[in-house]
């Protein structure tokens, strides 16, 4: 991993649909070099996936997302790892993090509607061994996701010419 790799990652993070040719004109690399480096980063698992930032609210699919805080009793020898890995296997769990502070694990869970999320939490998450407490927060509206604002911003006005 060198500066050129980091540069590539920054470019791809912002727009993963650019072609190797387009990336090459923006950097000092040839298209072939760009391709080789990207493949290496993919193989190393640094690049996990190419995805799209979607404003689901605008897409109107009516999905409900919630943040779920869990207080968990860690296991001897394994800490939080095993329970976190188990929770990760649920399709409904989109994001899972171990946190400092007043609770341990934080989950982002999505479902078709409130009932589905609530059923999932009460039937699958809350009864699991070692989970001592859950707190579910429904997301009312998302304004920014992973550095991308989801509301319309006016383009700043600039003069056509200035020195």
């Amino acid at each position, binding site marked *: 991993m060198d500066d050129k790799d980091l540069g590539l990652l920054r470019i791809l993070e912002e727009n993963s649909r650019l072609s190797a040719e387009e990336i090459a004109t923006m950097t000092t690399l040839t298209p072939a070099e760009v391709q080789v480096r990207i493949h290496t980063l993919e193989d190393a698992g640094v690049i996990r996936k190419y995805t799209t930032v979607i404003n689901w609210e605008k897409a109107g699919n009516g999905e409900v997302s919630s943040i779920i805080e869990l207080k968990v009793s860690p296991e001897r020898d394994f800490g939080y790892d095993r329970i976190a890995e188990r929770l990760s296997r649920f399709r409904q769990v989109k994001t899972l993090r171990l946190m400092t502070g007043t609770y341990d694990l934080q989950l982002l869970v999505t479902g078709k509607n409130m009932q589905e999320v609530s059923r999932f939490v009460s039937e699958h998450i809350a009864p699991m061994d070692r989970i001592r407490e859950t707190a579910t927060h429904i997301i009312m509206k998302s304004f920014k996701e992973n550095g991308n604002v989801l509301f319309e911003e006016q383009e*700043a006005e600039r*003069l056509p*010419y200035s020195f």
Partner: protein
Amino acid sequence: MRNFISERANGIPPSGIRKFFDLALTMEDVISLGVGEPDFRTPWNICESSIYSIEQGRTSYTPNKGLPALRETLSGYLKQHYNLHYNSDDEIIITSGVSEGLDIAIRSIVDPGDEILIAQPSYVSYAPCVSLAGGIPVPVECTEADSFKLNPDKLQEKITRKTKALMINFPNNPTGAVMKQKDLEAIADIIIDHDLLLITDEVYAELTYEGNHVAAGSVNDLWQRTITLNGFSKAYAMTGWRVGYLCAPKDLCEAALKIHQYVMLCAPVMGQIGALEAVKSAEEDKNTMVNEYRLRRNMFVSGLNRIGLPTNIPQGAFYAFPSVEGTGLSDTEFAERLLKEQRVAVVPGSVFGSGGDYHLRCAYAVSRKKLSEALSRIETFINGL
């Protein structure tokens, strides 16, 4: 009734792009590469600190020199980043943009008849400011053959007994040229030998793409005869805030301060508070913008060369300066027809003085999407010639 307009005001030539400006305003769907400012918004932490200060009622004058905290922070920043040692008490003035800094610097050193050398192509206000102060602007041409750097021999040729100072601006608007340590050392000897003063406008210092910016005042013994001008507009996307600074040895700074206190009193306080936040904690935002400019530069310049407009790779600022000599059109004709026929606004290089003929200043401070659209429109235009 008498004609009340002064001879000095009359003597200033009208703007070279007024007609383009008026025309562009009446047109739809224009991609403007004619702008001399970032397309980014000011980082929000800067805006927020300024808003908060207004809420707190900090809306009064500041000391003439500027807020002490801003001068102290800048003094440390300049030492750390550019090896420039200016005392925050009496060697730094916060100005209303570099434009004001330039004006007070010139007025504090120019007597009627003094010749002031200006490395050109240059920002459009240098020569008029010298004339307004009663001085005589003398261009020193920086040519494409020298990568638009200031050539020591050409500098030497223009020096007369009346020469008092030299004005430079690197990274350069409009060429994007930079002067490295050895380039500055070569002109330093001449400046010192002829006992000249140096005014260096380094507003694009932070936008240097290969290696680090070298401040002219840090080279050899230039410091004692250098006025350094800089500001926040370009690096932190703060053009509308109007905050810059002038740094000079105490006696020069005191002279400039006398003019500043009568013409400006102080730079706007909200701007100064925003600027303080910028130096203290917008490094990351600045780096993100610089990285993006670098990508755009590479993409845009390789595009210009591909479509047949030979372009040096600019080392700083956010301007490409392609040559249109091969098209058979002058820079003004090219710019005018490109605007009318393909709705792309660029600035003819001759506006920036000697050495700018047959070139265009294209600012790449616009999104990559717009840059590629501009490239394809320029290509269509060239193919139709």
